[in-house]
């Protein structure tokens, strides 16, 4: 399957899971809002151009926004993490190798610790920015901080669960291919 087809299917699945599964979870507490859809941006291949990342990030966010009737909210957060993604990968890339030997970021490609740092930093940026935009119209500073921490924790839990439940089989990239 080509990268394009694979990622289109992935986007559809992530949006549907977010809209019809995670958003439909019965109310538990005001700070608990499970988010997973932006993992799509984190899973995009390494070789996409930075411009391409921004466009894909915007499309991902605005698609979810139209389902949740909050135009712009998730799009803004997605564009932010799409912009920051290459920098974070650059910091975490192994110094001796010219690049990664796998196509996409995954625990197998990067190792568990760098991968978790990568997801954690981008999750934190995504949630901080999104909750900040929500909070501008309403709420107190304490609820803002608690909500960022709580949603980040839940999202990390969801990401780790997803990685363990659906390990992506990927071909090792060689020069001969």
């Amino acid at each position, binding site marked *: 399957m080509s990268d394009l087809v694979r990622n289109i299917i992935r986007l559809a699945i992530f949006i549907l899971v977010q809209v*019809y599964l995670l*958003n*439909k*979870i*019965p*109310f538990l507490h*005001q700070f*608990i*809002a499970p988010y997973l859809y932006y993992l799509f941006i984190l899973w995009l291949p390494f070789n996409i151009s*930075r*411009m391409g990342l*921004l*466009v894909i*990030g*915007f499309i991902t*966010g*605005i698609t979810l*926004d*139209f*389902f*949740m*009737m*909050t*135009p*712009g*909210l998730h*799009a*803004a957060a997605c*564009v*932010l993490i799409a*912009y920051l993604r290459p920098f974070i990968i650059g910091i975490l890339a192994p110094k001796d190798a010219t690049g990664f030997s796998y196509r996409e970021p995954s625990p197998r490609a990067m190792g568990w610790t760098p991968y978790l740092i990568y997801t954690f930093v981008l999750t934190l940026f995504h949630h901080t920015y999104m909750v900040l*935009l*929500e909070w501008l*119209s*309403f*709420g107190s500073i304490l609820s803002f901080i608690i909500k960022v921490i709580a949603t980040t924790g839940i999202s990390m839990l969801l990401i780790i669960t997803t990685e363990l439940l659906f390990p992506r089989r990927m071909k090792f990239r060689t020069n001969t291919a």
Partner: protein
Amino acid sequence: MRNIFLFIRRYFTFLAFLVFQGLALWFLFTYNRFHRAKGLGVANEITGWVNTRYNTVQDFFTMREENRRVHKLNDSLMNLLSSNFLKRDTSLRLVTDSIPYDTLGHYRRYLERAAEVVYNTVNSEKNYIQINKGSNQGIKDNMSVLNSDGSLVGRVINVSPNFSVIMSLLHVQNKVSVLVKKTKSAGSISWDGKDPRYLVLNNISVSDSIVKGDTIITGTYSNSIPFGKMVGTVAEISRDQATNFFILKIKTAANFADLQQVFVIENLQYDEQEKLLEETKKKIIKE
């Protein structure tokens, strides 16, 4: 000039990032202020179509609760049938105190349209509901929406040809004028974004005798919401120390996590009333 082009080329990604951010934020803030976003009408049709598919599956699991509500409403209407009443004294004249109506609907004030909820959330701070009727079926902005058992749900804020978006009572920018049924004192109800089972009612003076379980109904101040519809019951009473008002926690009558069939209420004199208000304002300014 050359330097400008060099600058643009060098920071192209960053500039693109700023453009996308600006676009997203512009969408967000125009929507928050006016509840109308560019292109949301088209998007509404598409998401509505997907939501309808999902809803056919969901209906299957929640039909029992819906059935119970409709049955209850039916029961209360059956009890009003004239055949249930016995006229004891023939010298008494039967008087109906409801607004008379003819079949042409000349005296009709409110028109109800049944619709089905296709998407609904309670977990956000700004919850919206999508229903499967739109401008083609006569839905307009600012119509109020009632649950299948007659309790208040929200207000229509955006319409596309076949779907419309409702601002739920569970929306932090929502404000509805209500009455305490027993004492007839008016206040305004809003949501604090915390628990979707409870709303907050302010502006009720402490001189009122309020007890737990008092009924809160919709008020008379709104042109779009009919008077006397159930909103909720008082669940918790506390006093605001700074002012002489109660802070009341209201348990909503409608279960927002489980909305399915709703009624959209149209006030047939809405335009006339709004026009009158506008003209009155103009007249006052002139004088």
